[in-house]
């Protein structure tokens, strides 16, 4: 696969901005993976029964007896001012921390109702920090649907942690974004093979491993949806390493190359560290590219992973993206991706789901990437779909997952081909 830029990329492609019904999750959803990633953290949503129901439904199964997230459900007396919401919150937090002495970080997570009634969770966090420090560190951020879409919740969470990270002048690399443990380990191994270090992760698995940050910190995003976190790190003096995202062989190589350039890694060392996994990744992707090549692709907005994925599917799997929808297009963070994405697809930001469904029906793509609310109805209408949420819940970054990532898209097509043979009259 060539690393050359396409003759015509999407850097200057106009974006169709839509405003209407959005068929997307709110930022609370990020709690589902964040609470597994940060093993001594508890996420307390201050919200309504809807918030609790969303977390339960999106998590799918209740595999955890007492999960490290919960909802402080606002009741009528809280709204009518009969009970002081802050006193109530302090009481619930006190009870929670008494029952869970293993909790070292507590996130108060704002929701639509708490934002609308203007419950000041920043002050509440300050107050609770006074009461529970140093054993527990209390943060707050908003995962409300009126302000955040799906993965923006993780962005808000990490951004909330940045101001209280300790200061340092040590030159370190900070990798930003919650990655599955297996992926994080591979990432660290690759960076070690390049001789880059010390390397820190944000978020860290445990509170005492949280990174320090300062003007000698170089950081690189591992997820495309971390705009606010990047801005918060910039304010701490850290400098961002711009790169495409590590999806696929090419994305991973360019991501590592950007780090290598920033840390002065010699080309010979880079080649030695990456040659074997690159070859493996290419081979693994090729197995699926045969199924995907030449097929058209339509991405509904979901996780902000859409543009990097469209780039991967177009350049490494030979697919033809027709529309790449994304809930939010962060131009600066997406620039290296847009330069690589071959011209052709409509880029849309935001959503008017009914109009987008009309466009989709008119194009009738070979593969549709969409949320769970749309997948079965589109399948029933004859379209092959890939549920987008799996892309967030599955290890898909870096070389060793490149084949798995391609497989997520080829499987629906292979499955349809298999089932087409069955049920014959």
């Amino acid at each position: 696969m060539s690393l050359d830029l396409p003759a015509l990329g999407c850097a200057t492609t106009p974006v169709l901005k839509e405003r209407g019904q959005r068929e997307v999750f709110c930022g609370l959803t990020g709690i589902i993976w964040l609470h597994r990633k940060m093993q001594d953290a508890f996420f307390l949503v201050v919200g309504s029964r809807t918030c609790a129901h969303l977390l339960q439904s999106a998590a799918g199964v209740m595999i955890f007896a007492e999960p490290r997230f919960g909802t402080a459900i606002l009741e009528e007396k809280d709204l009518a001012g009969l009970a002081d919401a802050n006193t109530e919150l302090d009481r619930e937090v006190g009870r929670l921390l008494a029952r869970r002495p293993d909790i070292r970080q507590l996130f108060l997570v704002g929701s639509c109702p708490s934002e609308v009634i203007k419950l000041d969770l920043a002050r509440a966090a300050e107050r609770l920090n006074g009461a529970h420090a140093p054993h527990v560190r209390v943060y707050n951020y908003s995962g409300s649907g009126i302000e955040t879409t799906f993965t923006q919740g993780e962005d808000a969470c990490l951004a909330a942690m940045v101001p209280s990270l300790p200061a340092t002048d040590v030159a370190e690399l900070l990798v930003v974004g919650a990655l599955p443990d297996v992926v994080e380990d591979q990432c660290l191994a690759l960076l070690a093979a390049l001789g880059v270090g010390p390397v820190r992760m944000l978020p860290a698995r445990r509170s005492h491993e949280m990174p320090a940050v300062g003007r000698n910190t170089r950081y690189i995003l591992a997820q495309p949806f971390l705009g606010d976190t990047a801005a918060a790190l910039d304010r701490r003096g850290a400098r961002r390493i711009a790169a495409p995202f590590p999806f696929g062989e090419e994305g991973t190589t360019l991501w590592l190359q950007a780090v290598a350039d920033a840390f002065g890694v010699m080309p010979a060392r880079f080649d030695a560290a990456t040659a074997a996994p690159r070859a493996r990744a290419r081979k693994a992707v090729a197995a699926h590219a045969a199924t995907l090549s030449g097929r058209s692709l339509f991405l509904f907005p979901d996780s902000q992973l859409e543009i990097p994925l469209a780039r991967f599917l177009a350049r490494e799997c030979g697919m033809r993206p027709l529309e790449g929808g994304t809930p939010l297009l962060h131009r600066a963070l997406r620039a290296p991706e847009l330069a690589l994405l071959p011209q052709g697809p409509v880029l849309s930001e935001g959503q008017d789901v009914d109009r987008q469904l009309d466009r989709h029906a008119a194009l009738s793509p070979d593969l549709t990437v969409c949320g769970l609310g749309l997948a079965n109805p589109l399948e029933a209408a004859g379209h092959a779909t890939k549920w987008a949420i799996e892309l967030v819940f599955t290890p898909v970054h870096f070389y060793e997952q490149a084949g798995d990532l391609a497989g997520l898209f080829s499987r629906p097509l292979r499955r349809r081909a298999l089932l087409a043979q069955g049920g014959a009259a």
Partner: protein
Amino acid sequence: MKLTLWTYEGPPHVGAMRVATAMKGLHLVLHAPQGDTYADLLFTMIERRDHRPPVTFTTFQASDLGADTATLLKSAVAAAHDRFRPQALLVGASCTAELIQDDPGGLARALNLDVPVVPLELPSYARKENFGADETFHALVRALAVPMPRTEAITCNLLGATALGFRHRDDVAEITRLLAQMGVAVNVCAPLGATPDDLRRLGQAHFNVLLYPETGEGAARYLERACGQPYTRTVPIGVGATRDFLAEVARITGLSAAVDETGLRQPWWSASVDSTYLTGKRVFLFGDATHVIAAARIAAQEIGFEVVGMGCYNREQARALRTAAQAHGVEPLVTDDYLEVEAAIAAAAPELILGTQMERHIGKRLGIPCAVISAPVHVQDFPARYSPQMGFEGANVIFDTWVHPLVMGLEEHLLTMFREDFEFHDAAGPSHHGAKAVAREETEAAIPVVQPSGEVRWLPDAERELKKIPFFVRAKARRNTETFAAARGVAAISVETLYEAKAHYAR
């Protein structure tokens, strides 16, 4: 403010969505922020629906709050009307929109659309999903149903079946078939499968069958008042309840309750000697009140289990549940706090849980088998096969479903005979479940163990003997023995004491 980890019911607007999604030719506009659209996936994924729920969300954002959310709502209603051309529109608000007080009903009516617009009152901070479904269906019926002449033939309406209901699809088919055998045709089944125009015809039925009080009682009561239609009180789940239901229909209609029972196998399956081992098995029941009350009757009278605990999460039906619990001689548990349910189950140490998907998880943790009898639903509760809970086929289905998780008769004997056998130790679990046997130590940790009171002490022999008692009754045996010993001033429990206590408590 109340800390909640898991919930049995969603918010009321999800109940409204269950009614809207069950029906045809109806559209619901919800004033709600982005993110509330998650509820779509309940229908498309759990129930595998092949259409999007007929619901438009206004998905307002923070920037709209300062501006004009009311205009947003009006344009969403107008757009939904133009695009979907429904026979009627429902308009409501989710929890957040309730706070901004836009009066969705009033705004929608101001559009002067050519279809009825039914506003919904869904108090999100006080009520829950079942209330929302009942209230929505009630509001629709109030808006559309009118008294009218009865049909010539004897007909009834089936009330309460919704989308995302526990086996509603098959219950409707089963009850329709049973009623047909009696000579009663179904005029309208609603909400499931009905259009708003169908609701206008509700009044011509001779009576109503209330399938699910949780979601249909408001409408049934209204129709009794407004259209003079009596409604059935018996929920036909179980053999006895089905026969009572048919007798009730016979009283209302004057028809004979005699129907063909050749397909009914549950009574013989229960009477056959293979089922002897089911006698007195201790069961704990939890779910919605309707299913729990019916299941308790089946458990006690049709299968021969012992009901050791029962409860429901919906306060609306708490009174009926309390009455039933009294009849079964147990304390009623009315709570929507999942941890409280878990504690009650651990304390009762049942051999089988009949519960919801929540209790299935509790059962996994406590090492107690569980069969699911009630919503909240899971993708597993929508089987491809015909699988009703109601009527005679429902009774057959229930027998199979409840017995399947249990250790089978002969296996149980082997477990008792060879308690310390490395394969057949009691933590190994039933052999027909395919799960790998777990190490004994781990399972022990999951079993609720009652700590010795401190006043009495267990001698090593007695402690070893206690371990030979099946794990699901061990906590109770320990507690009983200690109580027995304490009452007699015995400070050290021997094997002798253990068996004396056993004899004392034997019935």
